[in-house]
């Protein structure tokens, strides 16, 4: 148990011990969400700014609810309704938020490294809610939490991430988290979206989906991100579905206790058969529930001061 960080910028710089600290803390916050009164006063009087320069629905709602359940005051700031349209820079926006005494800034931005930049120009704690194709740390933490809850461990598990890896911050953060915690990660998808260079992150890369999911304990599906692809990386959606989509025939050839995850939003009938998304082996909605607990845990840990952990 250790946590002395002010910001959550990425998973890459976290230790396995720090990741486990978040997961253990999240367990307690999940229990809070199951009570009649789901709110605790841990962030009473603190101000959190949700700075979503790139559109987001589920992550923003999850953070908002996490903040409300911790009794923080919240300011929401989105790209379309903001001064960005009027030409203000990210730095000036952040300094303005600081002038309002924001204690936390949760930032989603299309540019990789935007949260790291903010952490150098303002005093508030920065939480990365997704920066370009770089990282989405709270997603990886909630995925690890969900896996651990079902499999009771992460070390030694085979986790296959299937889909658009190249443009996926979820994939990158998951690769860091899972390999740090001792899982064997296999990446699979069209060769244009899953280049061999990912082997340098300590994973196995294959373009054969049946082989990729055969021994998997967890099959983690990613959405094809049309909005991030500058040119067409594969012939068409239909071809993707037939070559890489998770259907009943493919699922029948996996381990019977293999579980299915997806960070959402799900494109039914593209990367996953509609029925499979709703089946008992799918953890998709649990991931949403756990996301709330993990985000509460992250805010709670970052709120800690510099002093010793021990109570006098």
């Amino acid at each position: 148990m250790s946590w002395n960080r002010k910001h959550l910028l990425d998973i890459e710089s976290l230790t396995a011990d720090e990741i486990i600290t978040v997961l253990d803390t999240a367990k307690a916050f999940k229990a809070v969400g199951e009570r009649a009164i789901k709110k605790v006063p841990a962030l009473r009087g603190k101000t959190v700014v949700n700075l979503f320069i790139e559109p987001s629905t589920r992550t923003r709602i999850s953070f908002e609810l996490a903040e409300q359940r911790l009794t923080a005051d919240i300011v929401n700031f989105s790209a379309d309704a903001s001064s960005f349209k009027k030409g203000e820079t990210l730095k000036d926006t952040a300094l303005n938020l600081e002038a309002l005494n924001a204690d936390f800034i949760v930032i989603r931005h299309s540019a990789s490294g935007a949260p790291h930049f903010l952490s150098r120009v303002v005093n508030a704690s920065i939480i990365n809610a997704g920066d370009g194709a770089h990282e989405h740390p709270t997603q990886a933490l909630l995925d690890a939490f969900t896996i651990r809850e079902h499999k009771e461990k992460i070390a030694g598990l085979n986790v296959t991430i299937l889909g658009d890896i190249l443009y996926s911050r979820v994939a990158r953060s998951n690769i860091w988290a899972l390999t740090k915690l001792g899982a064997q990660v296999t990446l699979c998808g069209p060769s244009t979206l899953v280049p061999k260079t990912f082997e340098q992150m300590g994973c196995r890369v294959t373009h054969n989906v049946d082989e990729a999911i055969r021994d998997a304990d967890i099959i983690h599906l990613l959405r094809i991100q049309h909005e991030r692809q500058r040119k067409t990386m594969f012939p068409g959606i239909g071809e993707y579905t037939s070559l890489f989509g998770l259907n009943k025939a493919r699922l029948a050839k996996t381990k019977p206790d293999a579980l299915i995850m997806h960070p959402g939003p799900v494109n039914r009938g593209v990367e996953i058969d509609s029925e499979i998304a709703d089946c008992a082996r799918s953890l998709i909605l649990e991931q949403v529930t756990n996301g709330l607990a993990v985000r509460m845990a992250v805010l709670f840990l970052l709120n800690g001061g510099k002093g010793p952990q021990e109570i006098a």
Partner: protein
Amino acid sequence: MPEPTVILNSAAIQRALTRIAHEIAERNEAAAAVVLVGIPAGGVPLAQRLGTILAEIWKHAVPTGSLDVSMHRDDLDQRAAPKIHPTIMPFDVAGKTVVLVDDVLFSGRTARAALDALNDFGRPKHIQLAVLIDRGHRELPIRADFVGKNVPTAITEKVRVRLGLPNQNDEVVLEK
């Protein structure tokens, strides 16, 4: 560094808990309405031991839970985030007499946080506080209903309660 002074040895701890249990029994005629809630980490094993002794006195089982108070503390931004222990409340506290159990009563801030945390689970009829050691230095208007031992301390000293550790007798020590 001077040797720590033993304040209570294993037998003295057991005697103190037996006395506290009898005081709880004396104070609460409605035995069926009493539940014990330990404050982690130190209060949880004490609540269980008190529950065992009370069950012998009352001839029925006494429900016991644990209530983590970290999320309700008032010093969260002044030190590293605390480790959160499990909260297990296997009963409805509404209308009950809740006896909060902790190992050491010091500033009173943990007890205050516990009152707030308990509030989230319902409205008990009564809340009472039992502690093994009261070491003084209160910062809030809080006092314990049941005390194992009052120990005058200097604010710089530390009181350590060691219960159920492997290969070690239970004891309470004062470290300078």
